[in-house]
């Protein structure tokens, strides 16, 4: 009997159909196991609360107003034609994760091909339907960190071991500004952040 004949013979083994009852029971038990304490201990996910509108809001609002003004005045020219292919993939990924964690997603963070999720531990019951998707990228040498999120959500990234929390906001002309506790970034003030070059763009125009 040749190798080919043996393979042909083995292919004749009939596999029984999946028992849907057993399958349903298996899924149910697996989901229980997934939800048990400890099951998520090693997950590469940092869980934190989405920052509500809170202390210091007037000061933040003032800073944002300035940034919005600067962004509006200096960056009205339309160079929106970037990421023609990227936008579709980014929007799709955001939509997928948002669907998996409705009201809980702060950001999808991609670093060197690995994707992490920044999730709130409190689900937002009222979805902000006008939130605009955006992408922020941090670059230093060959290192690159991409952040997909929505305008106004609190995002925390780790750059050189330093945790940096900020909000990314889409401006009226489709630009993006970043506002952190001790920094502000805009296309008009493109300062390095922890040594990283920053790029940001709204994805809303591709919707």
């Amino acid at each position, binding site marked *: *009997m040749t190798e080919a004949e*043996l*393979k042909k*013979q*083995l292919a*004749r*083994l*009939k*596999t*029984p159909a*999946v*028992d849907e009852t*057993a399958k349903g029971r*298996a*899924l149910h*038990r*697996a*989901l229980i*196991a*997934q*939800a*048990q304490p*400890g*099951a*998520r201990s*090693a*997950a*590469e*996910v940092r*869980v934190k609360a989405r920052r509500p509108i809170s202390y210091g809001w007037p000061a933040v609002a003032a800073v944002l107003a300035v940034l919005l003004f600067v962004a509006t005045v200096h960056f009205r020219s339309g*160079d929106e*034609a*970037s*990421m023609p*292919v*990227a936008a579709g*993939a*980014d929007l*799709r*990924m955001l939509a997928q*994760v948002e*669907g*998996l964690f409705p009201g809980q997603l702060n950001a999808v963070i*991609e670093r060197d*091909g690995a*994707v*992490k*999720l920044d*999730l709130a531990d409190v689900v937002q019951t009222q979805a902000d339907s006008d939130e605009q998707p955006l992408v922020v*990228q941090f670059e230093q040498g060959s290192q690159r960190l*991409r952040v997909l999120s929505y305008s106004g959500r609190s995002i925390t990234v780790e750059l050189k071991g330093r945790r940096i929390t900020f909000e990314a906001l889409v401006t009226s002309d489709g*630009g*993006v500004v970043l506002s952190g506790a001790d920094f502000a970034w*805009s*296309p008009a003030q*493109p300062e390095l952040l922890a040594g990283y*070059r920053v*790029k*940001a*763009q709204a994805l809303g125009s591709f919707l």
Partner: protein
Amino acid sequence: MTGRLQDNDTMNPPEPTEAVDEALLITAAASGSAPAFTQLFNRYYPMIHAFAFRLSLCPAEAGDIAQDTFIQAARALGGFRREASFKNWLYTIAANKSRDRHRQQTRRERLSTAYATLHETAGVTGGGADEPAASVAVREALTGLSPELREAVALVYYEGLNHAEAARVSGCAETTVSWRLFRAKQKLKRVLRAGAAGGSHD
């Protein structure tokens, strides 16, 4: 520097492939997303169930092994290091679960009973009363193999893994897999040839 992106200065996204989707699902499931885990479960359950059947040759055992596999996967997803494909990682868990069950004497007895009633209990073993004779012959031939040999056959011949991948799943050297396959083929050819000559399943 400008913060805006120029045409030649785009933020390259990951390729919108199924692999990316799967990586995302795995990450989401590891973080506790039930919908993400359910998608992975539905994608891989039939494959793992079939693999479990080829290891155990018993539908009831296949269902139990598949269930144990996904329970273990749900608990261990956070530790999945992506060094192997997710599918091969599931194969590894399933093979371990199958071996664990073999080691248990009670399971052995249950299997013995199942094998003994192979031809008597339609729907309990194999494909049931309407299982083709050719399938019965192959199943009986596979039953005659030791679990280690059967595992090698299942991984390489049925799941399409190469010897190196099968070795990683089985937790042994690649040469061991090659040797097990050699031994398995000898036995299978002998049994299947004898069966064909005798026409016992025609």
